[in-house]
């Protein structure tokens, strides 16, 4: 369906200009990413001496860095760990946040209000302020660090606030009470109503939160570095440690390692793209 254009030539020119501007800005945005891709194929010396060139490198292009990164990162193992942690935490936080947001919207009592306020406020707390107390409590007192389960639990806890915030807006605006009332009249219990009626309606916002949360968990470095110390348990971001020397770094391998880490998420994003736009539409805007 073509859009009806009003204004003729002037409109066309404006459109063309806007398009041009957009393309320029777009290239500026993608620029660093492109640099990473180009340089992941080069050796360190070339990266330093001629970061731009693609063809005129002394050592030539190769996938060496990728091979090196792959083996040094123990990629398959780290990938497994990242996958386990990310999927588990995402499932948990999505489920719990949806339920909690649902409760807050439907039962607007003192506890709900307090919890919601605390959650919104907590999104501002700098991680550094909780870092050491967190480690003291869970490590020193409870001694449950160095387990992936603990990491999953912590990821869930930390992402609750943002997720509840988003779900809350969506439920308030997009899930009519009438639907639920009808379900109760038909004899459904509260949980049946939630899982069979409400949850399916939440699909757009769920997709959004899934992508945003998985992204955060997948790329997270600080929290896993505090929790996991055993080499066999390391997630992908942690496994790139060996590329950073004390004084300088192995840039080619770092870039290759970065691409290897980012590609899975990129794939997920590309596949879920449509859902995201839809989800953010209704959820955030309330």
């Amino acid at each position, binding site marked *: 369906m073509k859009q009806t254009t009003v204004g003729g030539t002037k409109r066309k020119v404006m459109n063309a200009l806007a398009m041009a501007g957009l393309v320029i800005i777009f290239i500026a945005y993608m620029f660093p*990413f492109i640099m990473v891709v180009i340089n992941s194929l080069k050796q360190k010396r070339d990266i330093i001496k001629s970061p731009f060139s693609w063809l005129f490198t002394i050592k030539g292009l190769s996938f060496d860095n990728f091979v090196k990164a792959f083996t040094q990162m123990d990629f398959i193992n780290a990938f497994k760990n990242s996958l386990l942690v990310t999927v588990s935490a995402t499932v948990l936080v999505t489920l719990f946040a949806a339920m909690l947001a649902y409760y807050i919207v439907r039962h607007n009592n003192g506890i709900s209000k307090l919890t919601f306020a605390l959650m919104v406020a907590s999104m501002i707390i700098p991680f550094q302020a909780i870092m050491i107390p967190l480690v003291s409590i869970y490590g020193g007192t409870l001694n449950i660090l160095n387990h992936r389960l603990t990491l999953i639990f912590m990821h869930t806890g930390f992402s609750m606030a943002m997720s509840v915030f988003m779900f809350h807006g969506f439920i308030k605006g997009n899930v009519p009470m009438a639907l639920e009332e009808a379900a109760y009249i038909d004899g459904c219990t509260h949980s049946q109503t939630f899982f069979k009626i409400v949850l399916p309606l939440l699909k757009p916002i769920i997709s959004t939160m899934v992508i945003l949360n998985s992204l955060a968990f997948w790329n997270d470095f600080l929290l896993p570095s505090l929790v996991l110390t055993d080499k066999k348990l390391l997630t992908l971001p942690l496994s790139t440690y060996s590329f950073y020397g004390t004084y300088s770094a192995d840039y080619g391998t770092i870039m290759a390692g970065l691409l290897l880490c980012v590609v899975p998420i990129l794939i997920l994003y590309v596949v879920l793209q449509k859902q995201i736009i839809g989800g953010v539409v209704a959820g955030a805007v309330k």
Partner: protein
Amino acid sequence: MRSKNNGKDFCMFALPGMFCFFAVVIIPFVYGVYLTLTDWNGVSKVKNFIGLKNFGGVMQDGQFWTSLLLTFKYVIFVVLIVNVLAFGIAYLLTRGIKGQNFFRAGFFTPNLIGGIVLGYIWQFVFSRVFVNIGESTGWKLFEVSWLSDPTNAFIALVVVSVWQLSGYMILIYVAGFMGLSEDVMEAASIDGASGFVKLKNIIMPLMMSSITICLFLTLSRAFMVYDVNLSLTAGAPYGTTEMAAMHVYEKAFTSRQFGVGQAEALILFIIVAVISGLQVYLTKKQEVEA
């Protein structure tokens, strides 16, 4: 009917989420606040209660207030630029131009690259790539690494943050724009409203809820900037781009004045909470139902 099952509802729906949140966020935070009242240095077995002495230390730490001021400056720039830019780009991306989805995806990609690596890449861009451009084209602006000069390094920091944050905000604004009813737009055009008037009186008020969210997110993230700060400039040149969060970390761990560092983190939190709270309150009042 609802109140009768309140208890059961609570246990089933609210408890799991609340438990995770309180256990992982609230309790350590409270413990952290307690720690600011002790002389604990992060390692020793002994913790003595010393009241507000650490806060006295905060007052004496001139560098903290300097970095706080710098952070304020930084926040103003970033919040303004990100929101204007994101708003504008989102507007362009919702007018039915060819390849819209492709662009939207592209603008989101910066978000895929996480904190520390992001800084490294940009540092690489600024100190090597730009300089390379400068050397081969003789373009004065790029000859000297931006990161060598305090003002330019600050600008570099702003640029990178804008780059990273706007992708996220573009997404939210796009959603907001898509939620605007076409009918209202057309009605306004028919009534003879010009582009600018339309923008001011119709679009802005309707977009207020998106603006609230984006302002809140940019505000809090800009105040807490750490990852990018560390990996892009690490406070260089000679400590002139050290933002508040980075300073707090240095204080606690590098200078080993843990108690003071923790107290500074708390103060930072309070300041940001107050400002964000104010912002949300003010913008929420402007929101208009569609």
